[in-house]
Every structure is written in C-alpha cells, then in structure tokens.
C-alpha cells in the first residue's frame, strides 16, 4: 500500500476522532442542563475524585513548595534577595505549578480510573445494558463525572496551592532562616487578582479535559480486555498532553489581556 494512502487514512481517522470527541463533549455538557441529574452518582464521584485524591495532591503540593524554596533561594541569592523567596513560590504555584501538577496527578489517578471503569463496562456490554434499560449512558456516566471534576478539581488545586506555600515556609524556616511574618506577608502580597482568576480558570479547563478525555477513551474502547488497557493508557497520555498544551494557551491568553 502506498504511504500517501496510509497517511491519508490516518489523517481521516484523526478527523473522525476529533469529530466524535466533540460530539461526546456536546452531549455531556447538554446533560448538565437537562434532567435527570443522577445526584447520587454525582455525590459518589465527588467523593471518589475529591476525597480520593486529597492525599496525593497534598503530597504533590508539599514537595513542590519545598523544592521551589530550595531552588528559588539559590536563584535569588546572587541578588541578595533570598528573603523574597515566598513571593516567587506563591506566584509560580498559584499561576502555574499548582494547577498543572494537581491536574497531572488527578489525570493519573482519577482520569485513568474513569477510563478503565467505562472501558470495562463497554467491553462487558454494561453500556448497552444501560441503553437497553432506557438510561442514557452519556448522562449517567459522562455528565456525572464531568460535573464532579468541574466541582472538585478547582478545590483540590486550591488545597495544593496552600500546601505548597506551606511547604515553602517549612524550608524557609528550617534551612533559609527567613522570618515567618516576612514569608507570609510576601506570599500574599505577590498574589494579584488576575493570578487568582487564572488559578481558577485553569483547573476548570483541566477538569473538563480530564473528564472528557477519560470518558471518550472509555466509551471508544474496542477489542475486549486488551482494549481496556489501551484506553486507560490513552486517557493518561492524551489528557496530560492536552493539559500542558492548553496551559500554554491559557497563559498566553491571560498575558494578552492582563
């Protein structure tokens, strides 16, 4: 088979996937505004996503803040500005590292969970059983998970941010001999309104990406149990890439309007 043909087929495939993905997103979002809402399922997902990820995002935040303090101090030292390290920490955490690292951790823990759960329901015909029972599987599974992600991921991100700044303070106190009052004053001083907006818009968009990519990977599973593994991996890979890429564009967008 000529390579040009292969390439065309591949491109066509990509177009098809984008189209399917967009359709799934539209249907899922439409489900948010039309009853039934499956509140019990949403509560269950909130618990799984929120409470379940709390520990890992806290650890992520803690070590990120601690290492930022160490590295930041090294960077600032030549200028004799080590005591302003909290400014560097809080700004970079609130704008970038908090949202991105929390989202990546959640994509690994929650996203893969969503993908593998829906994927195994797909290969064991449970999705079809939902349809046969007169239940819309997109509403029942995707919309509820999207709602839970949109609610929970911003909360988790704020927690990550707080713990990171706290981690920085630990290092500042223990190793850098920076005054606590000074640390916290500059930590808060550094955060502007548009940092907060950016720090909340990002997790919302990342939450959308994680939920939708994972649901799509799950629903589009083919090929039995082996397909479940493939979908799980895909959900992780594609949501991570989309998180990092969209982060760039969101940042760019905010810089243009700030």
């Amino acid at each position: 088979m000529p390579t040009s043909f292969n390439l065309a087929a591949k491109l066509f495939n990509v177009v098809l996937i984008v189209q399917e993905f967009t359709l799934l997103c539209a249907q899922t979002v439409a489900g948010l505004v039309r009853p039934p809402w499956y509140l019990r399922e949403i509560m269950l997902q909130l618990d799984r996503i929120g409470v379940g990820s709390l520990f890992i995002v806290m650890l992520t935040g803690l070590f990120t803040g601690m290492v930022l303090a160490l590295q930041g101090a090294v960077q600032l030292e030549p200028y004799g500005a080590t005591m302003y390290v909290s400014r560097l920490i809080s700004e970079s955490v609130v704008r970038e590292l908090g949202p991105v690292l929390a989202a990546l951790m959640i994509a690994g823990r929650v996203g893969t969970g969503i993908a593998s759960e829906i994927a195994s329901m797909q290969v064991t015909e449970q999705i079809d059983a939902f349809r046969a029972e007169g239940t819309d599987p997109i509403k029942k599974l995707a919309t509820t998970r999207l709602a839970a992600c949109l609610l929970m991921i911003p909360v988790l991100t704020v927690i990550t941010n707080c713990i990171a700044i706290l981690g920085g303070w630990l290092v500042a106190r223990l190793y850098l001999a920076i005054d606590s009052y000074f640390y916290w004053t500059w930590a808060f001083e550094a955060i502007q309104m548009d940092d907060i907006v950016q720090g909340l818009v990002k997790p919302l968009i990342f939450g959308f990406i994680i939920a939708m990519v994972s649901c799509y990977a799950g629903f589009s599973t083919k090929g039995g149990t082996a397909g479940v593994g493939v979908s799980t991996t895909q959900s992780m890979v594609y949501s991570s890439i989309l998180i990092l890429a969209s982060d760039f564009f969101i940042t760019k967008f905010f810089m243009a309007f700030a």
Partner: protein
Amino acid sequence: MEPMIAFTDVRLTLGDRLILKDVSFEVQPGETRVVLGGSGSGKTTLLRLVLGLYRPDRGSILVAGQDITGLPERDLFQVRQQMAMVFQDAALFDSLSVRENVGYRLWEQGLLSDEEIEQKALESLKFVGLDDILDKMPAELSGGMRKRVGIARALASGAKTLLYDEPTAGLDPINTCLIGRLILRLKAMGVTQVVVTHDLETAYRVADRMILVVKGRLAFDGTPDELRRCERPEVRQFLDPGSLPSEWKPLPNRDDITGEPVSVSRRDS
C-alpha cells in the same frame, strides 16, 4: 392485529462485514418466537437491532407500529422501556448489588416507592430461584447465577416484550427447566417473547413460531412442527448434526497416536 416487532428487508454491516441480509419476519403480540442459529450466525445482532442498539443500513424495523430505524437516540430510550433484554453474558451492572440491578429500571423511573421496588425485585429473584442473594455484588456470583439475575432484571422491569439471548446457556438441567417453565408462564400471561437459543429441547417446548438464522439470512420461518418436517438442507444440517459432511470424523484415540504425525482427513481422502 398489528405486529409487536416487524423486520422488513433488514440489512446490516458492521465494519466492512455484512452481518445480516434481507431479514424479514414478524412477531405478533403475545407470541413466543424462538430464534435458532449456529454460533456467529447473527442472532445476538438481531436482538440488538430490535432494541435500536444497532441501526440497519437498509430496511425497516417496527416496534409496536413505530419505525425505530430513523429515531434519534433520545426517543429510542422511550421505545426501549417497553422492552427488556437478557444479555448473553448477563451484562449486570458491576457497581450495583443484585437488588439494585434487578430493581434498576423501576428505580430510574421513580414511579414506585422503595418498598414496592424491593418487593418486585424479590419476586423476580424468586422466579429464578435466587431470593437469598439480594445483597451480593455481581462479581461474587457464578456464571449461571449472573445469568439468572439478568433474567430477573428483565422480569422486574414489567416490560410487555422480553428478549432473551441464550437464557439457558451455561445452566444446569434443573435451572434450564426452570427457565423454560418461566417462559411458558409469561407466555400464558400474554407477554411477547423473543428467545435466542441453541437448546432445541427448550425451543420446541416454548415456541409458537421459530426462525432459523444461517450466516445472516433467514433459512426458516414457521411453527415448530413445520421446522421438524422441513427438508431444506440448511435446516436439516442445523437440526441433526449427524448429517454433517463426512469430513467430520471423530478425533483419533490417544492410544492410536504413535510417533507418526496425525494426518487430518480431507474431503478427498
């Protein structure tokens, strides 16, 4: 009387494979229709078409007089609620207990109180001899138990049309008999039933009419008596495997196998 289910010249391809061609048949209200056919002939696909889980390329499928082939998914949910399906591998909801699985549709519809749903779930489970496992999860059940819970789920829905995909496959003789009796009992109650099965004994016992699917085509449509008398080679081949072509010889005994490689007999040998 208007047929409950009517297929007219239905044709379906999945991927690039032609699965069903020119399938036409009707199921009258209250009729028990048995679908026979070899493995991979397209029986499950046929049931999925009735529910609108697949859309045919061509032809029409009427359910209670309504053409479902062009209906958007949202309207199909309404149509599907008139029916219930027992899936070949049960397809129980893994995250729900047996009780929640069986009462699922009633719960979703929200028309009955929790006690009434509980009552119905218990009743249907009694029908299949499993009223002592209400709080188990599907993963804790054996294959045959899962199958029977699947049947109970269909029963509890109160649907007037039931579709069974091999309800007796993998069940012991006692349970097979139980399911056979259950189908007869529902038939007496006027429920329309489509039963896909390999089990000829049950098939003859419960069927009003039968169809035989061979490689995606209907090879037979008629009453059990007509099927017994049918002389068409495709039908005979399915009914008595003894009439299979001569290449189908028994495998050699273990003792017969010497150092020589076993030669597989061909048609021309």
